[in-house]
């Protein structure tokens, strides 16, 4: 009996965790729109509720009640499957992200690999969505997205290996514990920059939003999507940004470590600041050209990430001050 109560309790915890994630994702859209507004000296959405606080709820209701169109030349099965893959692949990653030492779904010993594995499955959502729409702009967007995500995954993984070498573990909890006192951003400044660049390319945000670049491709792979199928893609995109913020916090900014405030608060503050940084970048930089995007990944980030890994490994094996 006791075991069953424990199990139910655990399930409730998991549901609560994902409810928090989905709530955050909804309100991240509002944050992004408001902050972008401020960056561009305008107000942003501020009409629904005080300071526009009910806007995400209104958007959600609107998306749910819109007509769900499927264009006649779409491949129905894959057309429906694509947004589901996108969202599920990202949400599965959150299972391995602890929000504090206690509030998490699972403390995996191979957490980092698990996250890499599931976030790499997100490519199929973009690819299938673009292809199954039966529209040339969608197809181009999907192909671009897949090429971009696959090529930026390599520098991203190499940058993460630097962190793994320093902490000697793939578990999120142990990586955070290894940073008590000195955050990895101080020991891996180059790695942090590579991580941020690669991860914003992975999430497909400006300046890397070639996937849905509106002046060339209408809306890329999302062109033919409407109603909640579009909503799923949208949620997946913001969940990916949230995942990136949480990862940056855990891997480079000391996770939930910090004085005075409770761990959960520190984690929240740091993740919010990273997310704010992403918005800032989006408001600041123009979009890259596609060839620039590819040469940045293969000719700049790859060698830098390899050099970073080499130096990190050398310093770990032959510590200069010890």
């Amino acid at each position, binding site marked *: 009996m006791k075991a069953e109560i424990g199990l139910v309790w655990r399930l409730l915890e998991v549901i609560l965790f994902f409810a928090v994630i989905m709530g955050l994702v909804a309100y991240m859209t509002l944050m992004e729109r408001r902050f972008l507004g401020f960056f561009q000296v305008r107000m942003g959405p501020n009409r629904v509720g005080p300071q526009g606080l009910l806007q995400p709820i209104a958007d959600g209701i609107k998306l749910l009640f819109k007509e769900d169109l499927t264009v006649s030349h779409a491949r129905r099965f894959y057309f429906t499957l694509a947004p589901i893959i996108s969202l599920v692949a990202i949400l599965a990653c959150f299972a391995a992200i602890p929000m504090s030492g206690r509030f998490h779904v699972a403390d995996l010993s191979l957490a980092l690999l698990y996250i890499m594995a599931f976030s790499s499955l997100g*490519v199929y959502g973009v690819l299938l969505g673009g*292809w199954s729409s039966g529209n040339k702009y969608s197809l181009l967007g999907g192909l671009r997205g897949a090429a971009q995500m696959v090529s930026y995954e390599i520098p991203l993984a190499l940058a993460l290996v630097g962190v793994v070498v320093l902490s000697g573990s793939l578990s999120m909890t142990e990586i955070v514990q290894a940073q008590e006192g000195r955050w990895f951003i101080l020991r891996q400044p180059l790695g942090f920059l590579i991580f941020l660049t690669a991860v914003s390319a992975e999430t497909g945000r400006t300046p890397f939003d070639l996937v849905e670049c509106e002046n060339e491709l209408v809306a890329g792979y999302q062109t033919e999507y409407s109603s909640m199928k579009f909503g799923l893609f949208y949620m997946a995109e913001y969940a990916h940004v949230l995942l990136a913020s949480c990862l940056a916090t855990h891997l480079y900014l000391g996770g939930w470590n910090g004085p005075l405030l409770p761990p959960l608060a520190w984690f929240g503050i740091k993740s919010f600041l990273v997310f704010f940084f992403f918005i800032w970048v989006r408001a600041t930089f123009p979009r890259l050209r596609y060839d620039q995007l590819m040469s940045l990944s293969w000719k700049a980030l790859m060698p830098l990430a390899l050099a970073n890994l080499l130096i990190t490994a050398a310093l770990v094996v032959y510590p200069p001050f010890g």
Partner: protein
Amino acid sequence: METAIFWGLSFCAVAAALAVVFLRQAVNGVMSLLALMLVMAGLYLLLGAQLVALFQLIVYAGAVLVLFVLVVMLLNLERKPARPLLYPGKPAVASLLALCGAGFAAILRWAPPPGGGPMGGAVKPAPPIEQLAIDLFTERLLIFELTSVLLLAAAVGAIVMSRKAGDLS
């Protein structure tokens, strides 16, 4: 519980593998292959080999198959006539398949079960990742490095083959 999951996953694996061979459209075949990869990862996980399962996802599902899908989508193969190949209706293929099936059945019937049960007895817990790294970089270093040379040669070969004649860049 584990036995039930094992049979479920095995059924899915066989179904997906058959779908790879028999589905007419190339995209359906590739997506079945993806399903097969995922199910295989599940089977590895069931065996307690988390590392293998995750690398299966990262390398095969996350990278190799993406290229397959890209190629299939770029070539738009479904406009081509359906491939005229390997359907059990043809007598030669059907008899070959029946022979293979009989062979498998014979193996299953007469081979001694490896340690009893479909799970092969008690599953040993996977060694920690540190042990794997130590093995890889001490005892098996030569093979490991030789594999990388092989991969490099394959990559160079692919680049040479994909280059157009007369293009020296």
